[in-house]
């Protein structure tokens, strides 16, 4: 049994339509009970990596190189049936938009118990009991009523709690959280972040936390990987990244964040020189690929 929970090695992907690389030789490791941030701006490739792990890449993107090892087993080498079984048992997703992730036509109880019945073979009654316990764990008020409700009857924060409950229901070893708080109010976001951290600590789950918000990374992640145009710019523990960043892109990104605690600082546009350097780095990498 390997030390890391998830190890991605030299993962590369291209977009079929534009023939441009979408991921450039991405490598990262996530430990057993670690919260690992996948940070980057839009288009950096962080969502693509998450989808690659879950096996739900869109049609137009194909992986060209690399491996994704979950608990030592290479997901990409498995047959699709094997892969689905492994993923279903070990990995769960907390999606970005709680509204579209829940079936509007089915009650919450059904959506929470589906996985339990299917993958754990519980009876409907046992599954319902477990669902109630989960809703209590995510601090949902009136869990009985919530079970009977339809998604549109709940607020955004409540829906996200339901999805977190659903994610932890099968006791996965790895959870992919794809920008789970982006659509929420900032006060609700804090509650949800606190909840995710608490449940992750309690169950010992590893989390890959996709986000564009450096503030969220600072508060909830142990380690993080920063991406730009599908390439890893910097990675390390969150403490290192924040206090002594190496890469100019990391420094510039931090300087661009708004800082209410430092009036006069923050909101600095990324200097064109830094962006040019990043683009050169990417171009050089593409060039070295062509030479291989």
């Amino acid at each position: 049994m390997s030390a890391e929970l998830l190890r991605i090695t030299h993962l590369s992907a291209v977009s079929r339509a534009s023939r441009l690389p979408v991921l450039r030789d991405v490598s990262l490791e996530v430990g057993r009970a670690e919260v690992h941030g996948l940070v980057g701006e839009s288009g950096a490739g962080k969502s693509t990596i998450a989808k690659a792990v879950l096996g739900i890449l869109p049609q137009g993107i194909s992986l060209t190189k690399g491996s994704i090892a979950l608990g030592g087993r290479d997901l990409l080498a498995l047959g699709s049936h094997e892969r689905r079984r492994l993923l279903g048992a070990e990995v769960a997703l907390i999606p970005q938009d709680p509204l579209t992730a829940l079936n509007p036509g089915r009650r919450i109880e059904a959506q929470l118990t589906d996985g339990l019945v299917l993958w754990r073979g519980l009876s409907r009654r046992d599954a319902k009991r477990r669902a109630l316990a989960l809703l209590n764990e995510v601090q949902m008020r009136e869990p009985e009523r919530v079970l009977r409700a339809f998604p549109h009857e709940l607020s955004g924060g409540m829906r996200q709690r339901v999805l977190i409950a659903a994610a932890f229901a099968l006791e996965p070893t790895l959870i992919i959280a794809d920008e789970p708080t982006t659509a929420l109010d900032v006060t609700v976001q804090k509650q949800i972040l606190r909840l995710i951290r608490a449940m992750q600590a309690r169950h010992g789950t590893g989390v890959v936390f996709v986000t564009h918000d450096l503030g969220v990374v600072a508060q909830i992640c142990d380690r993080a990987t920063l991406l730009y145009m599908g390439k890893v710019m910097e990675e390390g523990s969150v403490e290192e990244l924040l206090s002594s960043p190496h890469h100019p892109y990391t420094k510039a990104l931090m300087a661009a964040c708004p800082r209410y605690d430092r009036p006069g600082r923050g909101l600095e546009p990324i200097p064109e020189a830094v962006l040019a350097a990043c683009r050169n780095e990417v171009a050089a990498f593409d060039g070295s690929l062509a030479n291989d």
Partner: protein
Amino acid sequence: MAEQASALGSAATPSRRRVDTLAALLHEPKVIGGGGFILFLVLAALLAPLISPHDPLEQDLMSGALPPVGFAGAQAGFPIGTDDLGRDVLSRLIYGTRVALTVAFVAATLAAVLGTALGLLAGYFGKLTDGVISRLIEIWMAFPPVLLSILIVAIMGAGVASVITAIAIIDWTRFARVVRAETMAQAKADYVTAARVIGFSRFTILLREILPNIAPLLVALLTLEMGIAVIVEAILSFVGLSVSSDTPTWGGMIAQGRQTIYQAWWVFAAPLAALFATVLAFNQLGDGLRRALDPAMRR
């Protein structure tokens, strides 16, 4: 990826939008298929006197009830045979396209204009205007369409004009409902609010911001309506309420053919097949137009 890719320095290249759309249209198979067939029918209707082998009204009792070519007893001059009065089925079919297409184009367009105008007003101005128009639509749709069309034709007398009027008066509600819903959705769009903020009058907004964005939907609806109009005309001429019995119409041919269906099935089948093909072509054209016009916008 779009954000960072365009940061690579290539400014957006403007495309000639109209050429883009035209190209998209011509590549859509349903547009080519459906549109091509309709075009073929239009040509047939226009060139009817030139391409018909015989005069559609000419009776020749000696050549009555001849089967189509390929069956025993056929004659070369009558490719799809003749009816029991000796009139050439093919020629009557060709001349029948004139009535069918005239009704299709004119009636559908009138229904579209009337329905769209009312739908736009109801959807955009809301409140009382919408209330009145919506109730009008609901009441109007409660009338049985067949009875209403018979009534209109009875009042106006048989003829193409009455058929067109009947279809337009009955079917405008179909346009109005869809256009109203679409307008209401569009009216919530930020670019409509932006136009208000700039100070454009409500009519200008309706015509310049909303109508162009409803156009693809309208085009699709229009072609569908044409298919419906063809069928309605056929029904009305089937019951003898359309043009005078001399002018060949597909519905009239079906009515006559029904009486001799065992002896001369082709008199019944040929116009039926023509009707089927035409409506199918209109539907395909409409579907293809809708597909081609919308994604071109979103690309």
